[in-house]
């Protein structure tokens, strides 16, 4: 596939990398930060992801650079978690079992003990909210972050996380409900 004279790392690849990847570096970092939980691990993941992106820059189909890069970051983060924090990923299987029971995306309304006022949620301080997000299981967290922070739409999230759109919808809804329940019940 590679012809001589157009080796990876040629000027064209660099230019393409700069145009495709660099504008979305902040989003890449934010996603990695949320998935790994701290700055230095996030930087490792982003570096690794950028290396992967640079190497496959020619395979980029030219449709949505942000979603493409975030998918690579997400995969790099999963490799990293698998190597360094396998416990964080174990619960994915359990989660699948739970999701099977809710095959049609039904939401456990009963799981929300109280229904806090919207005003209470709006007043939640940043540290409290960040802690609540950090405590979400990884699949919920990544769905939430891809949607709320990176601004991907459901279809893009489905492609990035390799699950059907229905699963994206139920994960997103349940991630939000967990946060709402947590912010509504914790008194400050």
């Amino acid at each position, binding site marked *: 596939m590679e012809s001589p004279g157009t080796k990876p790392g040629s000027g064209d690849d660099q230019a393409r990398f*700069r145009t495709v990847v660099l504008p979305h570096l902040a989003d890449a970092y934010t996603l990695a930060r949320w998935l790994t939980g701290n700055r230095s691990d996030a930087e490792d993941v982003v570096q690794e992801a950028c290396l992967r992106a640079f190497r496959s820059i020619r395979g980029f189909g030219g449709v949505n650079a942000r979603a493409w890069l975030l998918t690579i970051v997400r995969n790099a983060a999963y490799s990293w978690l698998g190597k360094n924090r396998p416990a964080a990923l174990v619960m994915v299987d359990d989660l699948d079992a739970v999701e099977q029971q809710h095959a049609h995306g039904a939401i456990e309304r009963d799981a929300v003990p109280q229904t806090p006022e919207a005003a209470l949620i709006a007043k939640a301080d940043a540290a409290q909210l960040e802690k609540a997000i950090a405590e979400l299981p990884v699949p919920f967290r990544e769905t939430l972050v891809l949607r709320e922070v990176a601004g991907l739409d459901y279809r893009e999230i489905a492609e990035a996380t390799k699950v059907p759109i229905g699963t994206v919808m139920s994960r997103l809804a349940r991630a939000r409900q967990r946060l709402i329940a947590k912010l509504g019940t914790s008194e400050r």
Partner: protein
Amino acid sequence: MTSPSERDDASLLVHAYLDGELDPAHALEVERRLASDPTLAAERDRIAALRDAIGALPREMPSPDLVRRIEAMTAATPPAATHAATRLATHPSWHASWRALAASMLVAAFLGSGATWLALRPGAVETTADLVLANHLRALMAPQPFDVASSDRHTVKPWFNGRVPEAPRVVDLAGEGFPLVGGRVDVIGRVPVPTLVYKRRQHLISLSALPPQAAAALAAGPHTIAGFNTLSWTDGGVTYWAVSDVAADDLAAFEKAFREAKS
């Protein structure tokens, strides 16, 4: 957009509604249910409040050091040094790139100046699409993608007076899902050009209005450059160039909304 099997779950639809994922017919249906169901309306308010709270979280930016390391990684292999390029590509280690760091710092410094980096593309003939995209990218990397921040067209339009020969047509497209966020002046072919910035979800759309006297003011078909879509059209003697990383369909919808909006 939403699969029919989810239709029975009103709550999921509310999430999808707030996320802008519903087609107009479903959105209308949800709005009707919200109007008649206070429990559902309260849930909508909670979700909306949560979304606002998440949106207001301070965003940590990647450290300049990380950005430098990444730029060094790619810049460390200049086109001529194919030998080094091969080594980087076959070597999983990041450290392979450190050797050429000194040389790359020069390039990084040049890139850091921001003004002309697209011109680095060897032998590239700059089309209007390239220039428009370069302006958009520069805006994305700047702390602010606009020079005047306002969702009020009556603020944005007068701001252009005295900065460009003719203030552009500014319309409010929030109702169509493209809220106005601001404006800036770009330079295309040495001509200052008014550029409006709209938003589609979290994505930005730059819309440059090229006056007829701009040499580059020729509309061209839709393009995709490095993952960004551009679209141009001419209306009332002004050539509009829209560029964004939203899907081509969304950009086409934006053109339609802009053309049809009452100014």
